């Protein structure tokens, strides 16, 4: 099966309001094809909401999301999403769960071959016939990634994909994600609350938060965009990254101490 080439994503003036609570405001962002962009921000800063706009699970009240030049309207075949929880169907085996991600028109034999290929890529070929309750959290998250890749996405949207994993598993998964990215190069938009993870994985890091001096329900904007230097795989302990890390934490710290942050 041909893998879909990575696709560029453009967000123009994207805003989203729930009732009288404005979550996002004037989000402008251009993501190049094949780029990895990490979104960080304090809890409740609208990271997941922004991601859901790109994943097609929610529609903005204002502005547009465009993928490869065509506007997004609902769930789109060109994007695939993986959640913080693996969200595997407990009554299906790992392989049958990955199958869920295959495009609808995939012929049976081709689909099976593709699932096997993806299970090899995420190192789950030995667990293919196990049920989700029989595998660990890290394995389940890998199965969830394989399911997303089965869709052959041009844009891969990841909502805190490793957030529920233990620290050690998380590091292994980050390396796996980079391996996947070189094997199946999609544009990746990922939400994380882990600054180190963002700096290790991303080409650019987007800091999301309310502007200083504005009330919390004025909606989050892009506070800063940081281009991470150096080619991947990066040295986890590099000094220039440490500098950026301090900057980003500083940015997050401001939002967390914001007096209006209480809901």
């Amino acid at each position, binding site marked *: 099966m041909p893998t879909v080439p990575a696709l560029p994503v453009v967000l123009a003036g994207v805003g989203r309001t729930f009732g009288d609570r404005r979550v996002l405001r004037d989000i402008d962002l251009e993501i190049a094809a094949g780029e990895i962009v990490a979104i960080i921000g304090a809890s409740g800063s609208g990271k997941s909401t922004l991601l859901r706009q790109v*994943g097609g699970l929610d529609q903005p009240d204002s502005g547009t999301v465009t993928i490869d030049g065509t506007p997004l309207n609902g769930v789109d075949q060109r994007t695939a999403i993986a959640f913080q929880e693996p969200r595997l169907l*407990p009554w299906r085996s790992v392989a049958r769960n990955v199958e869920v991600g295959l495009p609808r028109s995939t012929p049976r034999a081709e689909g099976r071959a593709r699932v096997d290929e993806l299970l090899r890529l995420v190192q789950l070929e030995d667990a293919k016939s196990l049920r989700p309750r*029989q595998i*660990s959290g*890290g*394995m389940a998250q890998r199965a969830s990634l394989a399911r997303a890749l089965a869709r052959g996405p041009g844009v891969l949207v990841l909502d805190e994909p490793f957030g529920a994993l233990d620290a050690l598993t998380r590091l292994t998964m980050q390396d796996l994600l980079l391996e996947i990215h070189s094997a199946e190069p999609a544009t990746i938009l990922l939400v994380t609350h882990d600054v180190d993870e963002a700096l290790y994985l991303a080409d650019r890091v987007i800091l999301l938060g309310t502007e200083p001096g504005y009330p919390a329900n004025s909606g989050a904007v892009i506070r800063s965009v940081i281009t991470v230097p150096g080619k991947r795989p990066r040295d986890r302990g590099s000094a220039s990254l440490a500098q950026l890390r301090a900057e980003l934490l500083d940015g997050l710290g401001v939002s967390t101490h914001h007096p209006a942050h209480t809901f």
Partner: protein
Amino acid sequence: MADQFIAATGTAGSAYSGLAVSARRKTLPGPLWLRVLLGAIIPLAVLGIWQLIVSLGLIPSYRLPSPASVVLAGVDLANRGLLFSSIAISVQRVLIGFVAGSLVGLVAASAVGLSRVVSSLLAPTLGALRAVPSLAWVPLLGLYLGINEDSKVALIAIGAFFPVYTTVSAALRHVDPQLVEAGRAYGYTGTRLLGLVQLPAVVPSVISSLRLALAQSWLFLVAAELLASALGLGHLLVDSQNNGRIDRLFLVIILLGVFGKVTDALVGLLERYLLRRWGS
């Protein structure tokens, strides 16, 4: 292979799988003959005490027939060709009514459980209909459909409908919204989503509602046949009461118990198959 993986998984995963395994082992350990023997103790004891009471003449035989006379009543009915025809017509009514009622119940439950519009439209009416004591339908059904097979089967279907409708529509409303959203995110909508996520998720509820529906079906069968019929186990009950045939009354009650249990066991087999296929 599987054991190796369970052992290798993290704490959360293995603890969870341990739970699931222990929850599934409901039956007693030990060989089958031991379980059969244990289950037979009480019925055999009841039979013994029954025989003893009759032999000692503690209760007169017009109030309590002997076990032998109950068997003889069965043989007598069989010789007249009444036993098997009564059983056959009753089982037929139960099965048709049960299948029809549960299928309609499943469809109604899917519509109400999945669509807010359909739920707002249908749920209040169905709730009100459910509140009508089901036997109140008997005269009306008799009038509309006549005192024939249709009215009896319709009554049984009504009896089977409500347990399935109520249980399954409630269960559908509580399917993990995260799984539903994941299904949507992969392009599944409508009946495809229903088949991928919602229906498999409510399989345990469907099974327990089917068991309830089956019990209700037998209940409504007897009600329908008691009130108006010329053949069937319920008719045999009324007839025996009118003729003072207490031996036949005992026979029919025992037969109803046996057939109710046998059909329930058949649903139990279906349950084992479905849970192996769709259980987590």
